[in-house]
């Protein structure tokens, strides 16, 4: 089910600007990898390179090698949509489709990819909403607009939408930064559960969150503005937070910079 993501010498550009350089990372299946680091160091850029979302922007491109279970994500004959179906994504701000009901939002990925059978859709909807801990709150009003939910519910709706297509890997870019502490806790619990099935990569600005939910932590940083972001240290989360081997990591974690 869950798959291993491996990055070898990955660099990403916005036009002529190099945002990240030479990233080497292995993200293990059925585990949570946290990406931390100061703003602008390229965490989002790296994350978006993994499911080929980076290239959506005009002029943006990726160099280096990214593989999922040793299959090249950027291979010549690889179908982008297949990659994205395999590697789901949850964004910083909840983005439910405003014209769709809760139900349609959850099964959007299935419906738009050609699944028609009502019973299949119904089952997938319930399963995804249960997995996202949202079923109890919304099962009586599935036909109401998805945009009418609270921020935290909308984010869980987006998580349900992402996992309804049964991806192997789930990318999360600061999924809790727009949420209140209660919703954040609900999503952290959810991440711990999802870990049993998926490979999860999460960007977070919250050290405690990284420490709570992740198995391994990657620390990114930049020298100065305009320089590309680099991977400084990558290790077991407990090691990164108790006994980092690089001084810069320690400074960042203890709040001395960033």
């Amino acid at each position, binding site marked *: 089910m869950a798959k291993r993501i491996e990055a070898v010498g990955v660099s990403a550009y916005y036009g002529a600007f190099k945002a990240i350089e030479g990233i080497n990372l292995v993200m293990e299946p059925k585990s949570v990898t946290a990406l931390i680091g100061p703003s602008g160091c390229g965490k989002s850029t790296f994350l978006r390179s993994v*499911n080929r*979302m980076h290239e*959506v922007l005009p002029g943006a491109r990726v160099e280096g090698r990214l593989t999922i279970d040793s299959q090249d994500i950027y291979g010549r004959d690889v179908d982008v*949509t*297949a*990659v*994205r*179906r*395999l590697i*789901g*994504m949850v*964004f910083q*701000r909840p*983005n*439910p*489709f*405003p*014209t*769709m*009901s809760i*139900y*349609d939002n959850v099964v*959007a*990925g299935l419906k*738009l*990819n050609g699944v028609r059978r009502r019973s299949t859709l119904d089952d997938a909807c319930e399963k995804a909403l249960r997995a996202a801990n949202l079923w109890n709150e919304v099962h009586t009003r*599935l*036909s109401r*607009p998805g945009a009418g939910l609270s921020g935290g519910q909308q984010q869980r709706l*987006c998580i349900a*939408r*992402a996992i309804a*297509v049964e991806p192997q890997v789930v990318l999360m870019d600061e999924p809790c930064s727009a949420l209140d502490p209660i919703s954040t806790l609900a999503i952290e619990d959810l991440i711990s559960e999802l870990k049993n099935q998926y490979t999860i990569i999460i960007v977070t600005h919250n050290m405690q969150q990284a420490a709570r939910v992740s198995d391994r932590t990657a620390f990114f940083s930049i020298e100065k503005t305009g320089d590309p972001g680099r991977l400084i240290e990558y290790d077991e989360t407990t090691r990164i937070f108790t006994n980092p081997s690089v001084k810069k990591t320690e400074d960042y974690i203890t709040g001395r910079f960033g």
Partner: protein
Amino acid sequence: MTTLTTPTISSALHVRRLPAWAIGVTAAGAVALSVALFSGLGLLGGGPVLTAVGAVVLFLVGLSVVSTVVEGGRAARNRVATALVYSAFVLALLPLVSVVATLFGKGTGRLDADFFNHSMRNITAFDANGGAYHAIIGTLEQAGIATLITVPLGVLGAIYIVEYGRGAGLFILAFWILIVSPHLSPNGRPFYSGFAASLALSVLMLPTVTRSTEEMLRLVPAALREGSYALGVPKWKTILRIVLPTALPGIVTGVMLAVARAAGETAPVLLVALGSPRINFDPFHDPQESLSVYIYDQATSASRYAPARAWTAALTLVALVLTLTVAAKLLSRRNTLNKGK
């Protein structure tokens, strides 16, 4: 260490407010003074318009003075600005109200069954009856076909510009000429038909539809597109199922503006459909009337019965466009909001 200073900004939450009756009194005073000055004494030549403008200006001055004294400067500025905004609104509404009032005043003269089920065939300058049935058919067919041509072209063109291409204006024009120009004159001779009018009208409508659709598509947040891509949905399907439905109400507004404009257009229809006093259901052959051409005909006709027909036709045209617009808005709103399970 504590020092006592006079606060420069008042920390009191409760301030003195001007009661509603004081505003009424100010308004009444301004009106009375203006009537006395401009209508009574005939200052500056007098007249009702000057009196009305004078009343508004006097009210603004009076309001700012009274409000400054009672509530202070900030509240006074707020009141004057509010009053100015309302005045501007009323001013903008005046021409509309005037047009509607004129239409209803003069347009109801021929609002009878005859008008809606008879053409102008065999009606001479001395006949009081005759109707606009043929013109209504013409307008519906011409504007309808023009819309059928324009909406797909305009929306697809806008999608191309926003989602795929850069600087695509020429592309659309070329495409348009390619598709449409052979139909204008199949045998090299010009001929009159409602369809020719539709083509002419769609040339007029295309920029409006394309531009407004373009703006609406640009308003759809990139986050929605990315949310769809992240589910493995291909780009074309994302545009069709996510972007277009989100932008639909705005696109419909743009289309209806273009339809209204086309339905009111006279000159191109006159040139290529010519106009006709007879009922002609076939948009592809022979001259065809439209409501705007009908209005033009009747308004310039020498018959004493013609002006009444022209006014009623104008009222009919406005009512028709209004009905279509409201219907389209209701439909698009129902489609976007209540797309239930």
